[in-house]
């Protein structure tokens, strides 16, 4: 049982890491700030989500799992806000 | 409770009051309608003055330092306040100059009788209280981090004062001052944290017993000193001072030149004479004094070449600050092998106090002249001395003290320093003191000559100058002269607590 869960964790986090790498490449390679932010936020939101998902089987109880999901949700919201502010700043 | 290495004295509560009374003034001033802010000042200034007087009397009568342990938490865990002879004397000077400036500023920063609250008066009075609180905290503090907070308080109060008038040049000057000051305080903080890492305390009294002669200590002390030198505008870190001090409104210039730059100097003395006594090497002391000598020569020569009165006075501040740094080679008593050399110690502090009075008076006089004429071009000042005799007299008296003509505080200071150079066998500084006096004579008489000369064209007086404001400037100048009546010997009062 636990080895299945561990395999799931490894798989999900690896996928998450892949999205982070993709997002970072986008950040470095895309031509202007809006497209860079697009690449970064899309990929990183998904990446963070996958990392959180992968960690879910590893935590102690439902409360800790809820915490992880809340962390992801807040990261989503604050990421969206920060992106908006940055775009306003460069325009 | 922690080991009581430091115990409070009976009148110690006065020290807390000295710092917190102006703070209470700031808080009240922030919430009252701006129209009443001057009334707040009428309460804050006299009571603050009374507190300073009480501290001086307590220190003089007790013959020892007054100490207060804040919250009952003794150092190293807590923070103590300590008033020795030099802090008490600094507090008194500060109180006198600030109260005089308050009286002087009444004519300049008044809320309009009708209509809404105005910007400049509201800001000015709050800044004045803040500078007072910060200076008291600086001279009473005995904890390196507490002193850092006081330094920042002083900076944040001084910078807006520079650009209170709002012209572009003054904002530029304020920004440059701000950057110098920030780098200065960050370097100081860097040194302070190293000290904590080495000795586990920030308390100056405890440090004096723990400090070891080792490279890390020297690096920390050097960083703190360089940071404070930038704030004191010692040559060659003086570039920010002239536009900042000349650009401020007259009461602001008076405070900045007379008091604010001395706050960081005071802290340098605290570090080398109280936190690490006996650790200042001969070479380092000579270097500090050499920078001081450079300040005297460069500042005076530049003052001679100025076209504008306020800029000339600002450059003179750079020169006069230079003398203070002779305290390092002369007062540590290297030649005699004693830790304490009283003549130079007294001379340096006399220089600080007399310059504070004289320079405040001089900036006020310059402000009145500029107000009357609408400009401060030295070349076109001809004859204004006859229209404003009191102002001219104030300018002349303070000028004589800056030059060091007897009887004046400036004379006592420079004479004591001269004798000290001979006693210590460091005659080369004597030459600088003499040349500095001659150069000061040059720039003061250049202006005095103009003030008394026949006007090239009929003088147009733009605004009436209030008699009471002239008298404020004059009384400060008289204070500078009266300091010349103290006996020419080491002062016992300035020695209290060491």
């Amino acid at each position: 049982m636990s080895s299945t869960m561990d395999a799931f964790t490894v798989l999900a986090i690896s996928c998450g890491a892949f999205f982070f790498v993709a997002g970072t490449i986008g950040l470095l390679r895309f031509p202007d700030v809006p497209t860079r932010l697009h690449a970064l936020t899309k990929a990183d939101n998904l990446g963070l989500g996958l990392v959180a998902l992968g960690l879910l089987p590893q935590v102690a109880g439902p409360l800790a799992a809820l915490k992880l999901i809340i962390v992801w949700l807040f990261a989503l919201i604050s990421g969206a806000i920060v992106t908006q502010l940055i775009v306003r700043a460069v325009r | 409770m922690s080991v009581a290495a430091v115990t409070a004295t009976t009148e110690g509560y006065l020290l807390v009051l000295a710092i917190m009374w102006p703070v209470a003034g700031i808080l009240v001033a922030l919430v009252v309608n701006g129209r009443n802010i001057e009334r707040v000042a009428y309460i804050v200034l006299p009571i603050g003055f009374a507190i300073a007087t009480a501290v001086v009397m307590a220190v003089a009568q007790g013959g020892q330092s007054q100490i207060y342990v804040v919250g009952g938490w003794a150092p190293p865990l807590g923070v103590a306040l300590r008033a020795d002879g030099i802090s008490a004397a600094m507090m008194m000077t500060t109180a006198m100059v600030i109260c005089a400036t308050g009286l002087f500023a009444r004519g300049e920063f008044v809320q309009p009788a009708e209509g809404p609250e105005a910007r400049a008066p509201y800001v000015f009075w709050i800044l004045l209280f803040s500078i007072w609180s910060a200076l008291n905290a600086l001279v009473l503090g005995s904890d390196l981090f507490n002193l850092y907070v006081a330094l920042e308080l002083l900076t944040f109060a001084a910078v807006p004062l520079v650009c209170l008038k709002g012209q572009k040049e003054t904002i530029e000057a304020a920004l440059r001052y701000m950057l110098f000051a920030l780098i200065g305080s960050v370097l100081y903080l860097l040194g302070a944290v190293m000290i904590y890492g080495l000795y586990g305390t920030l308390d100056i009294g405890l440090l004096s017993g723990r400090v070891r002669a080792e490279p890390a200590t020297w690096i920390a002390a050097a960083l703190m000193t360089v940071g404070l030198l930038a704030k004191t505008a010692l040559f060659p870190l003086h570039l920010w001072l002239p536009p900042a001090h000349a650009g401020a409104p007259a009461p602001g210039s008076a405070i900045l030149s007379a008091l604010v730059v001395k706050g960081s100097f005071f802290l340098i003395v605290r570090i080398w004479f109280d936190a690490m006594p006996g650790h200042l090497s001969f070479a380092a002391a000579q270097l500090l004094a050499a920078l001081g000598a450079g300040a005297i020569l460069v500042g005076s020569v530049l003052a001679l070449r100025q076209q504008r009165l306020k800029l000339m006075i600002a450059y003179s501040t750079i020169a006069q600050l230079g003398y203070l740094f002779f305290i390092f080679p002369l007062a540590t008593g290297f030649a005699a092998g004693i830790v304490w050399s009283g003549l130079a110690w007294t001379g340096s502090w006399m220089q600080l106090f007399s310059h504070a009075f004289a320079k405040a008076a001089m900036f006020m006089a310059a402000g009145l002249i500029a107000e009357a004429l609408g400009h401060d071009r030295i070349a076109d000042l001809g004859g204004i001395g006859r229209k404003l005799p009191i102002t001219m007299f104030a300018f002349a008296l303070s000028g004589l003290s800056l030059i060091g003509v007897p009887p004046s505080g400036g004379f006592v200071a420079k004479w004591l320093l001269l004798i000290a150079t001979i006693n210590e066998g460091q005659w080369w500084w004597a030459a600088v003191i003499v040349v500095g006096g001659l150069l000061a004579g040059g720039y003061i008489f250049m202006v005095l000559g103009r003030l008394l000369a026949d006007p090239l064209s009929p003088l147009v007086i733009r605004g009436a100058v209030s008699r009471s404001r002239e008298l404020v400037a004059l009384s400060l100048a008289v204070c500078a002269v009266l300091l010349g009546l103290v006996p020419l010997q080491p002062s016992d009062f300035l020695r209290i607590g060491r």
Partner: protein
Amino acid sequence: MAAAFDIGLIVLLVGIGAWMIVVRDVVVATIIFVVFGLLMAIAWVRLSAVDVALTEAAIGSGITGTLLLGAAARLKGADAGGTRLSFPITVVAAVLCAMISASLAAVALLLTYPAPTLAPMAMQNLDQTGLGNPVAAVLFAYRALDTLLEKVVLLLALVGVWSLAPDRAWRGVPSLDTTVPPSDILAFFAQILPPFGIVFAIYMTWTGASNPGGAFQGGTVLAVMWLLVMMAGVMRAPSISNVWLRWLLVAGPALFLIVGFTGVFIADGFLAYPPAYAKALIVAVEAALAVSIAATLGLLAAGPPERMQQK
């Protein structure tokens, strides 16, 4: 493993710091600075300083980032490039900075163990303060004078910022980035996030007495929430002569000062607390401070008033 993580983090910190110094565009430099701040917060956790990590994330990166980003945006059109230093002076500066760096590194390597520490003393006296968090005990009991003076520093910085207002705009409102009209998306998020933010800020202030957190962190979160709703156009910036606003600014420091002087009569002296009531008094002071800090930081980031309020 841990050492490898630390080294990686340090390389990142220094690399990003260097990038920030050399990168050409100011806005990009500011964004890099925000990232740097977040990495610093991780460094603070690695150094077992969770209180500082929270402060760094909230102030060092969050609100400073907002402030600088806004400023960079407003300076886009202006010609703000000062005069470049000549090459020899640049070299001298580089050598000087390298020397300072080297001497610091030397100090870091020279420091020996056992290191001096006040941790045991801070813990011994902790029960007299009634607090569970030693950092809070240092801030509000052992070294309360620093904290009180620092609050005055904050207020004074605000007066300094306000003093830069044009005379005609005194009593007016700060203009928060008027160049771009607020977008609907931002307004949407600015309505979702603040309720959570406020709850979090209150929790943070409350828990600071016994866990990492406290008035500074809580107040900063509140300030950021306030800034967010102002920048998104959900709520208007207040006039700086608003009486309520000025009372909010002063409330925290004033209560601190009053409690401090009360200590003269009911305890050992100024800023001393009677052990029985210490925790209650400190929590009350922290609560008032959090509100004042929020107002002060928010207004500091909003800048001086620039126009009169539209009726």
